[in-house]
């Protein structure tokens, strides 16, 4: 049952995304219209604390629960890949109001229509894999 800890972490994620309404299409619309601080507060708090935690993990060379060093893999250097890929992602994020995590949390919330978006996301992932070598990176 080594996997149970990941299920529990996922449950915590699903609950907090639901209870803070980050899975709501309305909240994403409000964010892209800059009409409330809510989503910026969520992402901002996570980033500030995440940056502090990452800094401390590196500074004190902390290890994971098995005693292995915690390593942070730097992202590959590029501009087109991130700006083009990111923009395509954003087009879809605003339309469906759900990024990949919240898509699945919505299943638990019984919004069955989200399965259409998940089917789309899997097809999009597949097409990217098929076209990868022909795209600018």
């Amino acid at each position: 049952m080594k996997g149970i800890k990941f299920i529990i972490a996922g449950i915590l994620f699903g609950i907090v995304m639901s209870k803070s309404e980050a899975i709501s299409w309305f909240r994403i619309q409000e964010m892209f219209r800059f009409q409330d601080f809510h989503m910026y507060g969520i992402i901002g708090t996570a980033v500030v604390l995440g940056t502090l935690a990452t800094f401390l993990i590196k500074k004190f060379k902390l290890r994971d629960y098995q005693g292995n060093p915690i390593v942070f893999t730097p992202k590959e250097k590029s501009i087109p890949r991130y700006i083009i890929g990111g923009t395509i992602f954003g087009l879809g994020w605003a339309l469906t109001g759900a990024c990949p995590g919240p898509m699945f949390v919505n299943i638990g919330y019984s919004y069955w229509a989200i399965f259409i978006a998940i089917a789309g996301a899997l097809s999009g992932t597949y097409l990217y894999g098929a076209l990868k070598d022909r795209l600018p990176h």
Partner: protein
Amino acid sequence: MLELLRQPWPWYTSGIVIAFIMVLLLFFGKSFGFSSNLRTICSACGAGKTVKFFDFDWRTQIWNLLFLVGAIIGGFISAEFLSNGEAVQISQATIQDLQQLGISSPDGMQPEEIFSLSAAFSLKGFLILLLGGFAIGFGARYAGGCTSGHAISGISNLQLPSLIAVIGFFIGGLITTFVLMPLIF
């Protein structure tokens, strides 16, 4: 206590817990990135036979699929036991803007005009969800991550590529919100 939990939680609780989950996964020897699951599912369904990008040992990613299963369970627990059934409390300005597009004010978590089954199986609703999802899947892999991998993990590690990706997320989101949506709705 339960009454308090059933109300919507303030933004900082969510930010704190998300950072906690990121650190927790690091201590489990993994890294927080949700959209990788989409690639893993493609691979588990046999996409590696036709496309090299999916030809890897997807079993090494089972931990993340378990996280995904947990996320679904977490949504279920929230809806069943931790919800007071109230509509999302979005700002009045957003409600008014959306009404002009023909989307009524929130009744639950999601708009009826897109997420009700009758809307989702109309041609327009179906295409909105399918193409929106498609862009998310394609864009997340192209950019090498989504909100969790770039906006949270990447920026926390001061990665410039992640900042560029997040700028892209906003360029795309603003185009949809201010250019595409008035044309679609």
